[in-house]
């Protein structure tokens, strides 16, 4: 618990985020890159759009100014890849609901565990922060 944000440069502030293991902080850079990916996902909140998407995923995706990489990541439901390409989990969760997945099940697909293993970990108190706070410090 030290130092307030106001005293820090934006460059230092942002640089720290790359030091967190297995985590993509939704920074402005990611938000810019993923703008259309997230707005596409948001469109799935409307039932008529979900129907159209399910009837032809590729055609629906082609209606959005996405990169080919982003489209492939969506088609493959590769959530970590979508995060790398600027997706944000709250937006991507519209894809979970379109697929009829629970939040926990979709989230577990981003870890190295099966859903069963992930549920067991959560019921046993969750993932310990020990060792996954900082890449540099290894703590």
């Amino acid at each position, binding site marked *: *618990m*030290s*130092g*307030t*944000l*106001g005293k*820090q440069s934006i460059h230092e*502030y*942002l640089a*720290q*985020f790359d030091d*967190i*293991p*297995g*985590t*993509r*902080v*939704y*920074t*402005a850079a990611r*938000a810019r890159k993923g*703008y259309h990916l*997230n*707005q596409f*996902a*948001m469109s*799935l*909140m409307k039932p008529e759009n*979900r129907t159209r998407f399910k009837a032809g995923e590729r055609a629906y995706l082609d209606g959005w100014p996405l990169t080919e990489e982003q489209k492939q990541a969506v088609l493959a439901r590769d*959530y*970590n890849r979508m*995060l790398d390409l600027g997706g*944000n*989990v*709250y*937006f991507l*969760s*519209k894809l979970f*609901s*379109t697929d009829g997945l*629970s*939040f*926990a099940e979709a*989230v*577990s697909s*981003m*870890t*190295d565990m099966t859903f069963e293993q*992930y549920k067991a*970990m*959560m*019921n046993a*108190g*969750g*993932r*310990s*922060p020990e060792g*996954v*706070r*900082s890449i540099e410090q290894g703590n």
Partner: protein
Amino acid sequence: MAKIVAGVASSHVPLLGVAVDQGKTQDDYFKPIFDGYEWTREWEAREKPDVVILVYNDHASFFDMKIIPTFAIGCGERFNICDEGWGPRPVPVVEGHPDLAWHIAQSLILDEFDMTVVNEMDVDHGLTVPMSMMFGQPDKWPVKVVPLAVNVVTYPPPSGNRCWALGEAIKRAVESFPEDLNVQIWGTGGMSHQIQGPRAGLINQEWDNMFLDGLVGDSDALRHIPHIEYLRETGSEGIEMVMWLIMRGALGRQTKALRRFYHVPCSNTAIGHIVLEPA
């Protein structure tokens, strides 16, 4: 004169809303959680607040990437329930308090907090789940609500210090409202959770309990926790806890705890809940 008489903090996990809506609150998985809120449900029924200033965040439900207000205050007559992709939750419409909301908005702007005023807005689980936890399933909510939506999705969210200071300004604003009103302020979201990436599922009970400790008494140490500490210690979504600091800041220099509850897990999240009074 209006007065902030109490502060409440609570997680707002969507699955709790599902449990209420589908009548599962007594299932083995959920019962310990709903039992943990029983004290507060009875207390709220006795306290009968007139208005709740409800600090929450929208989860890509009403606000998308087009507009990202850091602090948005709902000044409308009523707020409809968002369809978050599964159909809107079957809960009553949320009634606003435009007179108080506009008074707070104007006062905050003069107090140098540049609020975004929102007249029409739908509210998501961030707001409705805490309402269900405190009030159950009434035909009509027993309070009016001033929604205060905070951006904690796109970085940077406001600092903890700024949130605390906003709470202090909200206290001043409420106290200058001429009508006699019994007002509560709620901070929602948290506690530790991460729902993205290979580190998903992170829970930090020790840190969460340190945070709960810090809300009680006369220390203001919590306002100085930098974002990076929330991220490292409490998971990428633990940052929602800055919203609790708006509630804490609005209670004045010192607080006492009436009730405290902590439970792991609910879905991906550590459930934390505290009821505070100015002391």
